[in-house]
Every structure is written in C-alpha cells, then in structure tokens.
C-alpha cells in the first residue's frame, strides 16, 4: 500500500496514493492507521485526492481510524475527497460523521484542537 507521511504545524499528514480503497486493501489500511495512532500522533489529516473509488470496506477502515483517533482524544480529518467518493459518503450518510475539508490546507486551518467530530443530528 502506497502511503506518504509528513507533518506540519503539529499535524500528521497522510496521503493515500492508491486509486482504490476497497476490500482488497482496506484491512491493510485499517491496520496501518491503528499502528500510526498507537505510535503517538493525535491529529491526522488524510489526503484522499488520489483515491477515486471507495467501497463499504474502505469506509469501514476510515471509520475505524476516526473512532480510534477519537478514543485517543485526537482527530482524523479527510481532505481532497473526489466528487464520486463524496457521493459514497452521502449514500451512507457518513458525510455527517467525518470532518471533510476541500484541501489539506483547509484541514490544517480548521485547527489542531484534537476534538473528535461528532455525528450531526438529522
């Protein structure tokens, strides 16, 4: 799995350099996120701009990262979500769970407060 790691302003930046996040690689990505969170960083921004397809198991991996960041009083923000992938979040109503920003810069500007994003009410 091709992931690049960087940091800026105390935030860990991940870029998933895969076209697809699906049942073939989602478990590997879920394990990677968990190991990363266990190693210390609390504020993560995940750049999904290279990812043009996400299935239900990919969403599950992202949810696992979101919940594990929250358990550690951290946050997992998403950025660069492509339009069709965004529609997948909306189909499953998960756009109300995740903190989603247009760009990495927007996610960084939003803050590094470490407050997990709670689901919005209907």
């Amino acid at each position, binding site marked *: 799995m091709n992931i690049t790691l960087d940091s800026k302003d105390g935030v860990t930046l991940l870029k998933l350099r895969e*076209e*697809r996040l*699906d*049942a*073939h690689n989602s478990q590997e990505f879920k394990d990677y996120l968990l190991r990363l969170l266990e190693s210390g960083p609390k504020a993560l921004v995940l750049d999904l701009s290279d990812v043009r*397809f996400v*299935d*239900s*198991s990919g*969403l*599950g*991996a992202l*949810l*696992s990262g979101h*919940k594990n960041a929250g358990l550690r009083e951290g946050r997992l923000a998403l950025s660069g979500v492509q339009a*069709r992938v965004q*529609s*997948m979040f909306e*189909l*499953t*109503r*998960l756009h*109300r*769970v995740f903190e989603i920003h247009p760009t990495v810069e927007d996610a960084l500007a939003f803050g590094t407060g470490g407050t997990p994003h709670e*689901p919005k009410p209907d």
Partner: protein
Amino acid sequence: MSRNRISLEIEIPTQTRYLGLIGNIGEQLARDLSEYTGDHDILAYNLNLVLTEALSNVIKYADCDSQVLRVCIHVEGDSLSIQVHDQGQGFDFDHLPSTEPEVLAERGRGIFIIRQLMDSVDYHKTQSGNVLEMKKKLE
C-alpha cells in the same frame, strides 16, 4: 438508432485483487451506453460499486476458495442485469444485514449499498452452485 445490447461474461479467480479489474470494466461499460440519458459518471461509479460489493460478499461468504467466479453483465435497452455465479457452499443471503447499519458500524453496508443502487437483489442456488442476481432499470 439500435438499442443498447451488450453481454459480457468474465471468469476470475476468487480473489479480491480482481475487484478493480471488474469494477473498471463496469465503469467503461456505463460510459459506453449511448442511449443512457442520465449522468454517465454517476452510473459508472455506481456500477463499479455494485460489482465490487457483490464480488466482495461472494468471496467473503460463499466459501469457494480455489474456485472461479463467473460475472455476467447484460444490458438490453434500459434493462441492466448483473449475475455473480459461485461454485461454493453458498450462504444465507436473507441473514446478511440489508438495512442501514448503525452510523458508526465498520461493517455490514455492502448489501445495503447494493439494495440502494439496484431495483432487485436475489441470491439463490443453481445446478452448479449459486448466483447473486441484481437488476436495474436504467432511466
């Protein structure tokens, strides 16, 4: 103008590494449906998604290691039919979660998504195994 009439039949090993291949074939098919008047990009993603979720579920539940899966995609006019044939023991489709799961649940959305995007979904036994069959009217 002649009606869209396309039939594809593809056999793949029962491995998730082929999900992308089949998904991409579905996308390309959706983009080539000249009669379809809706958004081809949306149809392409949805067809990719339905194929990916269907194959994932069969690989996961049908207990068919070392067998092949046969995927049939048929379009005639505005009717789309997708069949995924497996040679495994099969599974109790009716006991898979088909309603929307808890919002923070990490699993159990696959069949729900297929049901959201297709008009009908059915899994039943055949002479040589089982088939997951999905249909949709393209409009």
